[in-house]
């Protein structure tokens, strides 16, 4: 099939005396969307931060387009520029407008000229349906709008993959939909995405695979229909029962 | 060396007087009448908005002129330091009283405490603790500003250094030495205050400063 964009092997992470990730093997191909679910504290965010090269692993290897990221003296920032990241917490640059936020990366990191970066940014804002909000500051935007600007900020870098860490976890239900709709669009347009989310509707509709994480490991994975309907491990069954029953 | 003692003496006089003035004006500002509040605001603005040197000169020269009272430089200096420090300490106390006041007053009322009891047993013990860190800063800044007393000819550390520098023709060494004394004094005092703060931080204990 397609080429592997991002992968890892035997990935482990320790904070102090606590092993948060206990050995993860994973890969995602160009154009795929994979969704990670799992209980709180299972290490989902940590896994994503490691794959986004925001923190180094304690053990194991990460490959970006086949190259060992930490093993071959590569410029990490150049790879980070190719991996988009959308955070759960509000993380827009608060002193910049929506446009300023989206423009900054192309300008500073990709060294685009101002008008070129602006064109790129407006295009990205259009994709997330916020072009008419481009001159608003983050404080003047709703949580959902802020998250969409965050997505546009990642998109404007022309990334090879975007990682999402529970982008809707802190949003009201209606705001969740507007963000999820944008993400579905992206998935359908073939953007490679690795998403931590508990929006199972999203997973069902667009995910190629769901990964279930528990206690620092991926203990089960499979196509959405299969994993959601017939989870094999008791932990996943229990988790899904609570997740669906709890709503 | 005697200059250093004068410096320390002046600092403590200023702090102690300022402490009383600070608490009183903070209480006056929080609980007092409109007129009291205006007077206190004027007092604070005057002493915080103008330089200590000008205040020293002003009081030293104007009080005898106004009242016919003759006072020496030392008294004038000490009183001015107190008034000055009181204006700064008022701000800390007010902040601390308000911080405690909001959550605690209701609780005290529900126990049937009178206003004075509430103040004595609830507000002040907590406020005093909160006020220690800013109070340390006030101690440092007042300690250093005692060097302004030189304009009244008071023989504190800076003034003595200046005389010795002039006599010995070795200003560089003399001022470096004075700097070292100030520095050691301030650093050691800061350590002590930090230590006190750690001690009294224990919740439920009353503090005496």
């Amino acid at each position, binding site marked *: 099939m397609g080429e592997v964009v991002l992968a890892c092997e035997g990935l482990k992470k320790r904070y102090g005396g606590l092993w948060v990730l206990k050995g993860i093997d994973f890969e995602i191909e160009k154009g795929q969307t994979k969704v990670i679910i799992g209980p709180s504290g299972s290490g989902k965010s940590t896994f994503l931060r490691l794959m986004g090269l925001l923190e180094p692993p304690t053990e194991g290897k990460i490959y970006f387009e086949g190259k060992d990221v930490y093993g071959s003296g590569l410029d990490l920032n150049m790879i980070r520029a190719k991996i988009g990241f959308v955070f759960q917490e509000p993380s827009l640059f608060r002193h910049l407008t929506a446009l300023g936020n989206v423009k900054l990366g192309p300008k500073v990191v990709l060294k685009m000229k101002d008008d070129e970066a602006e064109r790129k940014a407006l295009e990205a804002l259009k994709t997330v349906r916020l072009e008419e909000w481009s001159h608003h500051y983050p404080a003047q935007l709703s949580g959902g709008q802020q998250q969409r600007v965050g997505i546009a900020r990642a998109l404007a870098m022309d990334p090879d993959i975007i990682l999402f860490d529970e982008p809707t976890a802190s949003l009201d239900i209606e705001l969740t939909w507007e963000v999820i709709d944008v993400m579905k669009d992206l998935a359908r347009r073939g953007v490679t995405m690795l998403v931590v989310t508990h929006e199972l509707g999203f997973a069902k509709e667009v995910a190629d695979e769901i990964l279930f994480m528990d206690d620092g490991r991926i203990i089960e994975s499979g196509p959405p229909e299969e994993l959601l309907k017939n989870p094999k491990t008791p932990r996943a069954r229990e988790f899904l029962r609570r997740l669906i029953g709890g709503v | 060396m005697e200059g250093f003692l004068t410096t320390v003496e002046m600092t403590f006089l200023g702090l102690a007087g300022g402490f009383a003035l600070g608490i009183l004006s903070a209480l006056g500002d929080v609980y007092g009448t409109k007129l009291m509040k205006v007077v206190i605001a004027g007092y604070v603005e005057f002493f915080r908005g103008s*330089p200590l*040197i000008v205040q020293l000169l002003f009081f030293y020269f104007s009080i005898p002129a106004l009242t016919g009272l003759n006072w020496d430089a030392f008294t004038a200096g000490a009183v001015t330091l107190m008034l000055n420090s009181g204006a700064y300490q008022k701000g800390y106390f007010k902040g601390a009283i308000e911080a405690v006041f909001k959550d605690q007053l209701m609780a005290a009322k529900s126990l049937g405490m009178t206003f004075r009891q509430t103040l004595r047993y609830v507000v002040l013990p907590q406020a005093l603790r909160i006020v220690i860190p800013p109070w340390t800063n006030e101690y440092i800044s007042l300690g250093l500003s005692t060097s302004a007393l030189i304009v009244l000819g008071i023989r504190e550390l*800076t003034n003595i250094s200046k005389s010795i520098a002039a006599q010995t023709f070795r200003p560089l060494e003399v001022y*470096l030495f004075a700097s070292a004394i100030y520095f050691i004094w*301030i650093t050691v005092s800061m350590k002590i205050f930090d230590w006190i703060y750690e001690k009294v931080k224990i919740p439920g204990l009353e503090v005496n400063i």
Partner: protein
Amino acid sequence: MFTLENFLFLLQGVPNTLAISFLSFALGFALGIPTAIVKQFSPYGLGYVADAYISIMRGIPVLVIMLLFHFGMAGIIPMFKSAFLSATFALGLRSGAFQSQIFRGAINSVGRQQMMAATSLGMNRWQAFRYVILPQAFIVALPGLGSEIALLIKDSSYAFVLGVLELTKYSDIVRKATRSFLYPYLIAAILYILITFPVANYLDRLGSRLKTKYGLR
């Protein structure tokens, strides 16, 4: 008697007071930002140097530094033959330490999440600092900078001891000349208040306004 003429004479001290304060503020700014950066990143373990600089400036009266410069170091550094420059540099040097503290606090208040977001775009530490952290920190620092200017305006009066012809010196001259013991210093005090208040107040209000606008704390 204290006359209008005396008042106008006294006003002649204001320009020097302003010059000392603003020049030393500029110097303090120029020293404060690099010091804050050195403390933040501690390149080559230089964080200690910044720490030492800050605690020394916190532990010595600015007047003693002025005297040290003017009387102690004029032989080594000719610039310090000028009382005006000695006073300005002493205040500026101290202000650099104070301002670095203000910036440090402001930088810390901007938070980890912003740094992480910048890193995720592929910015290096310097770019993240320059384009993301510093602009926000600067807004947070405005009220603190306002108080710092006010402090400098007031402490510029120490230059009087070196004989610089600033506001306090002029009021002292007027007092001696007129034998009016009340008004010269009182009016000087009021002038100081009139100068400090608007500056500090403006930066404070500007700071709160921008903080609300940008949703900063």
